[in-house]
């Protein structure tokens, strides 16, 4: 199995606060990686470095064999112009905790925006793809609604369809269910589960331990800007080796 995401000795500070203190992580193609950890552990920041929404201070990240955000010459990494970074991002889908749908555009326009303007797809083709994706997340009847007319769960499903519209090689989820009312969490997790079964490579930052146990190939536990341990759900969730993992799990389970 090939490596989709390769993260090597990534460091990141905000001012004097070091949030990532040397992260090494490999994600294989077609696998689901769930990242757990207390808030402030750096898991969201790590996810955001993978599509260069955060620049790293040190280290390197590659996705599908391409260095993200930089060009290497010798022992130097030169920052890429924004144009190039934007092109790289179209291969990586990102789903936000707060959905971040565009409120002034209809559901359909939200989904076709990137394919039409970033990938230069013909509008007609983009609309067909969008309808198919919205049908897949169970929202075929909401194409003309505006985001604020939808429930949180529906909005997040639109956001997933919007990310899928770019046909990404990798999907990143930043606490996709944390902003949802409890009864709406299930419908979003159903979509994630469906994507996982179809062999989508995904990295999911979440607090849903049940989802991790059921769907993840690898569970990564982060604390204090470091990966404390990683392994199969059975290893990390049922037989944790570190005190910090045990302490965290005892609070959330």
């Amino acid at each position: 199995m090939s490596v989709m995401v390769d993260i090597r000795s990534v460091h990141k500070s905000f001012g004097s606060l070091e949030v990532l203190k040397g992260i090494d992580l490999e994600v294989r193609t077609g696998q689901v990686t769930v990242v757990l950890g207390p808030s402030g552990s750096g898991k969201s920041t790590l996810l955001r470095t993978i599509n260069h929404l955060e620049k790293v201070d040190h280290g390197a990240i590659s996705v599908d064999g391409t260095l993200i955000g930089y060009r290497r010459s010798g022992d130097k990494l030169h920052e890429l112009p924004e144009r190039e970074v934007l092109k790289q991002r179209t291969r990586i889908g990102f789903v936000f905790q707060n959905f971040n749908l565009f409120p002034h555009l209809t559901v359909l326009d939200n989904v076709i925006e990137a394919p039409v303007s970033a990938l230069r797809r013909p509008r007609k083709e983009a609309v067909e793809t969008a309808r198919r994706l919205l049908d897949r997340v169970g929202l075929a009847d909401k194409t003309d609604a505006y985001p604020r007319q939808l429930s949180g769960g529906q909005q997040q499903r639109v956001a997933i369809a919007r990310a899928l519209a770019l046909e990404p090689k990798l999907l990143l989820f930043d606490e996709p269910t944390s902003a949802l009312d409890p009864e709406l969490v299930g419908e979003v997790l159903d979509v994630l589960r469906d994507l996982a079964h179809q062999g989508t490579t995904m990295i999911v930052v979440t607090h849903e331990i049940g989802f991790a146990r059921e769907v993840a190939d690898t569970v990564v536990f982060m604390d204090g800007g470091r990966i404390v341990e990683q392994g199969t759900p059975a290893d990390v969730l049922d037989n944790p080796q570190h005190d910090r993992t045990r302490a965290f799990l005892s609070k959330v389970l």
Partner: protein
Amino acid sequence: MSSDTLAKIPAAPEMPERADSLRIVPQRRFGQWGAAVVVLVLLGLVVNSVLRNRAFQWDVVADYFTSDSVLRGLWLTLWLTAVVMVLGFALGTLLAAFRLSANPVLRAVSWGYVWLFRSIPILVQLLLWFNIGALYPELFGVRTVNLLGPVEVAIVGLTLHEAAYAAEVVRGGILSVDRGQIEAAQALGLSRWRRRRRIVLPQAMRSIVPPAGNMLIGTLKGTSIVSVIAVNDLLFSAQLIYHRTYQVIPLLMVATLWYTVVTSVLGIGQYYVEKHYARGSERAR
């Protein structure tokens, strides 16, 4: 507490046996009625005195309301307002972009511009531009007085003034857009231009339109200040007539009525523009 102790607590003495037979009488607001009557009477007195005061000379107002020179003045006021708004907001948007840019030099220049042009009263500025020939007798090899006539001075002065305020309005609008919107657009690979044009600006417009409408009306009336440098606007046209006929009040009424009419039309326009940019803002039905 068990349910039978609860039952023994007596209800309030006024509590009826059957509450569904009671009628609710709203509180009487005598003060409100009294205040309304007083205000209406006062208003009636004012309207009566205006209509019966012959010095208003409403017949003269009617004569001049659509006279050629007044309409020419009105036309100048309208296009001057339009030109100043368009140029002022174009420059203001540029200044707002400078102010929000990552480049500290551009930020400082924008800040300095807004500081300077908000500090100088527009009347002082117009007089300065009007006399710029004293500083620079020639511009681009042309005599300054020939290059900058009263109308050009009015456009330059009002635009520079307008831009300082427009810059703050546009900047406020852009800052009102949630940071997550820009991140989402970046994550989707939208170009910088597309993000601004398609994502940020339409959402910023919701905060920009109300103060911009205010500025448009302010500018319309503010153009009357150019009468001091003899630009033939609505007010100056009225003044030219009353300097000749001494019918000061009726001609000021002509100008007053026209300003009111145009302001009302602009207010209606603003309503529809706001409605357009409110797309998608209504909550779930």
